[in-house]
């Protein structure tokens, strides 16, 4: 099965019942498959007039209590940024799939890239935190998309599936599990203030149509949900909570494959370049090479680096100019070597092996 199709199937298995989207290469197969399958599950597929409207409709649908998603790529992702900030401040669960392509602008519509990793983390205005997953196989397109809904409902944040054209378009074996784990959205207790959070920093969800009479606004709001846009302390408390609810859980939700924790040289990868690293480790006879493969990229759990206590060097191949390498660098005093790659082709395993020889 194709990666994009597997992504749609994973969403359906997770109970996604609303998809709002707009065609864009190389993500379109996700929308096409949802258009085919959603009506048969009683769900709704709607092709909106642009990506701004797509994410808006997804957020609106989410407030009725359904699991909702959209899928897009570079230019469409840029258009969604303002409303993603709205989802953050209103704490609306939603899943956004980005099948990354080469940018900036129209760039390389049909070629792979990982150039939106910082945009998904920081792209909307203001301070906030979100969750991003990065699948490296067709199987993970299914599994991680399904998991994205659980994380989104649990933390009430947008969750991104940051795939790329290679993973989205390749076909390989998919084993469909009988069921996928499902963690439901915590509902607001009647009588509680709609934006007052408990210890987990995540308030209960006041689904529209259930008599909560909740006012939801993109303005800075107090715990009642009422606009309160000029109080410094209300704003500070709100934004700190929005960030903390995700960041304080970063170790608990971190998800990565760790290979050879005793290694001196460790590759760190996510998404398609992971496949090149895996090939290098498969082909090499050396046993001092490790691999940290991030499945959950944001929030970045720096504790993962200490899982390699003997590591002297981290090598970070990415299909960009070193976006995650920059994040890794700021958490370690060990050598971080970015291996940037632009143009759409994947890192060649022999090139990475050659680099390995140079490094150590």
């Amino acid at each position: 099965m194709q990666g994009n199709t597997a992504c749609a199937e994973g969403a359906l298995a997770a109970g996604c019942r609303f998809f709002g989207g707009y065609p864009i290469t190389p993500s379109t197969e996700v929308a096409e498959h949802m258009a085919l399958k959603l009506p048969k599950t009683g769900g709704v597929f709607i092709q909106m007039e642009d990506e701004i409207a797509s994410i808006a409709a997804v957020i609106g649908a989410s407030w009725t209590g359904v699991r909702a998603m959209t899928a897009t790529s570079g230019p469409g992702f840029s258009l969604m940024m303002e409303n993603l900030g709205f989802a953050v401040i209103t704490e609306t669960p939603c899943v956004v799939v980005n099948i990354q392509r080469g940018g900036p602008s129209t760039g390389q519509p049909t070629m792979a890239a990982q150039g939106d990793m910082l945009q998904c983390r920081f792209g909307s205005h203001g301070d906030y935190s979100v969750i991003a997953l990065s699948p490296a196989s067709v199987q993970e397109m299914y599994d991680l998309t399904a998991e994205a809904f659980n994380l989104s409902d649990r933390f009430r944040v947008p969750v991104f599936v940051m795939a790329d054209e290679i993973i989205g378009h390749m076909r390989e074996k998919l084993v469909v599990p009988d069921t996928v784990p499902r963690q439901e959205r915590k509902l607001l207790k009647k009588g509680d203030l709609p934006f007052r959070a408990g210890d987990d920093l995540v308030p209960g969800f006041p689904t529209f149509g259930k008599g909560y009479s909740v006012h939801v606004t993109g303005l800075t709001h107090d715990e009642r949900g009422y606009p309160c846009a000029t109080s410094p302390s209300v704003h500070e408390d709100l934004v700190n909570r929005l960030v903390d609810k995700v960041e304080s859980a970063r170790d608990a939700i971190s998800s990565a494959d760790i290979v050879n924790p005793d290694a001196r040289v460790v590759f760190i990868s996510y998404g398609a370049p992971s496949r090149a690293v895996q090939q290098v480790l498969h082909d090499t006879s050396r046993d001092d090479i490790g691999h940290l493969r991030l499945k959950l990229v944001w929030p970045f759990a720096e504790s993962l680096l200490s899982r390699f206590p003997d590591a002297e060097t981290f090598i970070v191949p990415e299909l960009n100019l070193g976006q995650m390498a920059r994040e890794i660098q700021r958490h370690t005093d060990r050598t971080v070597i970015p291996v940037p790659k632009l143009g759409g082709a994947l890192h060649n395993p022999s090139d990475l092996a050659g680099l390995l020889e140079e490094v150590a």
Partner: protein
Amino acid sequence: MRTEIRFSGFGGQGIILAAVIVGRAAVMYDNKHAVQTQVYGPEARGGASMSAVIIDDEPVLFPKVTSPDIYVIMSQEGFEKYGVSVTEGAVMLLDSTLVHSRPACRYIEIPATREARESLGRDIVANIIMLGALVAATGVVSREAIEKAILDSVPRGTEELNLRAMKKGFELAEQVKHG
């Protein structure tokens, strides 16, 4: 063992479908691992289109084809774009009706388009003839597996035509082998 197969032709010949069918045969019916990829883009419509499949006994790690072991070339433009860089150890199946050049490696000439037109009455199944020939000549997947995968993938009502095309491919490859 990892086997990399590259398909090339012009848009509309079913180049991508051919790779998908081989991958499906390997995964679903031969219990192997496979990854299928392709070149996307406007140039894939009308110009030279390319798709690839990697078959392995172990899980396929690196998903891209770096140096193909087998080429299936169905157009002259496809040969020029994707077939000229062959390595010596590779083998190329080429549709001799449409490809005039010959590579610097072992090659097998299959008049797939002519046979599709003349024996089967439909150009469209030339890719299935090439698939039959590929399987008969190289054994990348079993004959049973390719048959099942073809039946899974072709439109309803065309099963018999496609199976005849596949068998024609078997025959043509065997003639070359023995001839």
